C-alpha cells in the first residue's frame, strides 16, 4: 500500500496562487477543493462534497487571472501557476444578484431547522450576502406535491431552486434513480418516472434527498412532526441499531424525546448515507409497549410488575434451583446480537465465572 501516490492530500505536487498566497495542490483537485483546504469561504448551493460537481448555481465563482469572466470553482480543475482570487467586490456583487434571483423563486426563505441536515444553507447565505431584497419577485419554482401521502418526505417544490442535489444524490450516492428533472428554465420540475407518488417509484425512502436539500423543499416529515416539542434540539453521535453495516448517525433529541435522525457525514462506514431503517425507524424506543418495570410470574400464573429487588431474588432463586438440583450444566444462556458488546461479554462471564461452563450462544445461528 505504501506505493500508492495519489491518496490523501499529502502528495502535493504542484503550486498555484490563492489570493496572493502560494499553495500546493494534487493534480485532479478542483479550485474549490484547494480553497476549502486553505480555509477560504466560498459560498456554494449546488455542491455536495460526496457528489460529482455540477456547476449549476454559479455561486462558487472565483476570478482567474487571464480569463475575462469569473469561473465556477467547483468544476474548474486547479492548474500549475493558476492565479485565483476568491474574494472581491465584483464577486460579492455577482453572488448577491445570483442569490436574489434564487430566493425570488421561493415561497419561503426560512424553514424549520428540523427539515433536514442542509436545509438552512440557502437562508444562511442570503443573510451573509444581504440578499433578502425581494428585487426579482414574481418568478416561480416548481409545483409542490402535497398529495404524496408518504409519511417521511415532504415534497414542497415551491421552495426548489433547481440545484438538483436530490436527483444527483439519489443517482450517484444511492444508485436508485428514483427522481429526475423534467423541463428547463422556470418550468423545471423534479419528478418521479411517471410523475406520481414516491411509493410508486424506485424510491427506497433512504431520506438522502431530504438531507442534501439546501432549502427545505424536501424535508423530514417525521422530524417536523416534533417541531413544537419544547426545548433545544440536541445531537448525540451513535450508530444505527439495525444491520451490520454500522452507519453513524446523530440522534436528534428534545428533552427526553428522540425526535429524529441525521446522517453523520463523517461516519466511517457510511459517509452520510443511510437507509430507510436507519433514517426513519428510530421511535420504537419511546413506544408505549416498552417494558418499564420488571415482571414476575405470580401464583395466579400471570406476570405482575415487581421491584428490581424482588425480580432479581426470584430469578436468582429459580436459576439456582435448577443448578442445585440438576447440576451446573442444566442452565443455558443466550446473548443478544442486538445489544452492545458489553452485554455479550457480561453474559459469557456469567456462565464461565459463575458456573464454569460454556453453555452460551448468541442468535447468529438462526
Amino acid at each position: 500500500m505504501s506505493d500508492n501516490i495519489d491518496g490523501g492530500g499529502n502528495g502535493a505536487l504542484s503550486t498555484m496562487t490563492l489570493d496572493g498566497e502560494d499553495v500546493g495542490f494534487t493534480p485532479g483537485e478542483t479550485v474549490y477543493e484547494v480553497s476549502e483546504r486553505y480555509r477560504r469561504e466560498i459560498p456554494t448551493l449546488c455542491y455536495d462534497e460526496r457528489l460529482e460537481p455540477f456547476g449549476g448555481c454559479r455561486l462558487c465563482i472565483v476570478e482567474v487571472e487571464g480569463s475575462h469572466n469569473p469561473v465556477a470553482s467547483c468544476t474548474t480543475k486547479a492548474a500549475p501557476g493558476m492565479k485565483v482570487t476568491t474574494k472581491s467586490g465584483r464577486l460579492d456583487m455577482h453572488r448577491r444578484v445570483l442569490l436574489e434571483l434564487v430566493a425570488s423563486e421561493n415561497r419561503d426563505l426560512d424553514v424549520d431547522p428540523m427539515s433536514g441536515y442542509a436545509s438552512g444553507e440557502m437562508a444562511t447565505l442570503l443573510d451573509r450576502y444581504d440578499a433578502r431584497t425581494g428585487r426579482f419577485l414574481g418568478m416561480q419554482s416548481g409545483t409542490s406535491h402535497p398529495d404524496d401521502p408518504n409519511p417521511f418526505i415532504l415534497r414542497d417544490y415551491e421552495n426548489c431552486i433547481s440545484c438538483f442535489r436530490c436527483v444527483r444524490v439519489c443517482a450517484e450516492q444511492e444508485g436508485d434513480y428514483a427522481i429526475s428533472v423534467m423541463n428547463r428554465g422556470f418550468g423545471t420540475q423534479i419528478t418521479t418516472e411517471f410523475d406520481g407518488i414516491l411509493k410508486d417509484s424506485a424510491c427506497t425512502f433512504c431520506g438522502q434527498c431530504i438531507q442534501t436539500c439546501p432549502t427545505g423543499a424536501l424535508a423530514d416529515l417525521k422530524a417536523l412532526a416534533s417541531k413544537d416539542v419544547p426545548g433545544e434540539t440536541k445531537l448525540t453521535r451513535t450508530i444505527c441499531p439495525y444491520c451490520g453495516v454500522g452507519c453513524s448517525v446523530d440522534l436528534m433529541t428534545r428533552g427526553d424525546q428522540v425526535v429524529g435522525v441525521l446522517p453523520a457525514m463523517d461516519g466511517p462506514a457510511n459517509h452520510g448515507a443511510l437507509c430507510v431503517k436507519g433514517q426513519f425507524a428510530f421511535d420504537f424506543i419511546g413506544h408505549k409497549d416498552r417494558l418499564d418495570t420488571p415482571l414476575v410470574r405470580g401464583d395466579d400464573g400471570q406476570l405482575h410488575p415487581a421491584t428490581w429487588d424482588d425480580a432479581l431474588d426470584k430469578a436468582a432463586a429459580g436459576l439456582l434451583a435448577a443448578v442445585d438440583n440438576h447440576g451446573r450444566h442444566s442452565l443455558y444462556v443466550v446473548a443478544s446480537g442486538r445489544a452492545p458488546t458489553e452485554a455479550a461479554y457480561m453474559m459469557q462471564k456469567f456462565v464461565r465465572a459463575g458456573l464454569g461452563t460454556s453453555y452460551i450462544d448468541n442468535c447468529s445461528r438462526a
Partner: protein
Amino acid sequence: MSNPLADMDKPDVIFCIGTNMTECHPVAATGIKRALANGAKLIVADPRHIVLADLADVYLPLRVGTDSALLLGMAHVIAREGLVDQAFMDARTTEGMAFLEHVERFPPEWAEEITGVPAADIEQAALWYGRAERGAIYYTLGVTEHICGVENVQGLCNLVLMTGNIGREGTGINPMRGQNNIQGAGDAGALPNNYPGFQPVTDPENQEKFEKLYGKKVDLENGITKVTALEMCGDQIRAMFIDGENTLVSDPDRAHCEKALRSLDFLVVADLFLTETAELADVVFPVAAWGEVDGTQTNTERRIQRLRAAVPSPGVARPDWWVISALAKRMGFQGFEYEGAEQVFNELCEVSPIYHGVDWDKVEEGAYQWPVPFDGHPGTPMLHSDEFVNGRGIFNLVEQRDPAETVDDDYPVWLTTGRRLASYHTRTQTGRSAGIDYLLSEESLEIHPDDVDEWGLADRSWAIMSSRRGSVRVRVKATKRSPRGTVFTTFSFADVPVNALTGGGYDPITQTAELKVCPVSVVPE
C-alpha cells in the same frame, strides 16, 4: 469481512451470492453500485430475481440449496482455463493439487443439471472471476443458512485461494453480518466454543488463563449450541436466561421451540418489549434500548464503534450489562462489580488479544478495525494481506449435498425465507416505528405469476402454506422476483409465523438452521 466496506467500489469483478444486499445492507450496496458505474462486472447468484440481479452482468438463478454445485462448476472452469494464480497457491495454500484434480469431475454441464443454471452462464461467471484483477466475493445468510452452510463457505474460499483474490484492496471474501452487533457478540465470547477474542475453549492454556482471571475453573469441553440446548430442554437443560432475542418467532420450527421453552423449570428473559418469548418467562427484566445506553458495537468490517445514550430509559429499565451483573451478584457469583460500560469494555480488551490495544477514549473516532493486538496499534482494515491466521490457506474437497428435506409429491414447492428493506427481523422495532407500516403493512408470499395461475390462486388472495411441521395462512403476491416452483416470504410478522414451517435440518458443524430451504405445499384457502 476480510476487506473494509470502503473497498466495495474498488473491485473490477464482484461476485454476490446469497445476499439480497440492496434490501438487507442498503448502504453497503451503494458501494457496489458505484463500482458498477466505474465499469466493474457483477455476477449475482440467487434463487430469486432480487434487485441486485437487475444490475448483474450475469445472473445465475440457481435452485435453492445448490450453491456447492455452482461453485464446483466455476472452479472447474477456472482450473481448465488455466486461470489459477499458481504463485499464490504455491506460496500461501496447501492441498491445491488435490483440489485441482477434484474439480475435474465437475464440469459446468454437471453443475447445470443440479443448479438449473445454464452451463454457458456458469462458464462466463467463472471466466470473469478467474480473470479479475480485483475480484471480491460478498455473501450473507443465503449461503450459510443451509445444512451445508460450512461447505458453501469453503467452496467460496476455494475460489478465492485458487485465484489469489485476497489480501489486496478491492478483493476478499466478505460475509455481511445481518444484525448490528452479531459480530461484537461473537468477539466478546458469547459462543460455546470460544472465549473472548475467539480463543478456543478446548485449549488448556486458555482454560488456565481464564481460571486465573475469573477465579473459577471452566470446562475444557465446548459448551453446546442453542440448537442443541433447545433440543435438550426439559431433559438436561432445566433453566434458561435469554437476553434480547425473540427466540420463539425468529428460530426455526416454532412448535418445537415453544414446547422446549415451556418444558423448562425456569425461564428468565431480558428485553425491550414483552415479546412472544418473554410472555413464557417466569421473570422478565426491562432493558435499556439503543439511544439509552453507552457502549460499543462492532460492524461487519470488524469496526468497533461507540454507542451513546441520548435519552433516559422508561421507568426502571436498565442496561443489559447492569441486569446481567446484578443477577450474577444475586446468585453469589464473584467478580461482577462494575461502574459502567467503559469498565466492562476495558475488561474485555484486557482478556481479548484482538481488542487488546483498543483505547476506549479513541473508539469514538471509529478508526479501530480489529485485530488491534497492542497499545498504539492502528487496527487492521484488511485481513490476510501477508498470511492467513493459521498459516496456509487449506483447500477443501467439498461436494454437493442435498438439503435435509427435498420436494416431493406432498410438498412440491421450495420455500426460501429472508428479509425486506422496510422490516427487520421480528419487527419488534421497525413495527413500532411510525410510518413504516406505510411501506410494508402485512406479510405476503411471493409467487411467480404462472404458478399463481397454475395453483388456482390469484394476486392478493389467501393461500395456505404447509410443511411437514405446520401451516400458515398468508396473502399471495404475484411477482417475477420468484422463479417457478420457489416461493419467498419473511418471518417479520407475528400473524404469519413462517418459522412454524422451517427447521428441517441443521448444518452438522455450526448447527446453523436451514432457514433458506423448506419444501412446502401452497394451496388456495
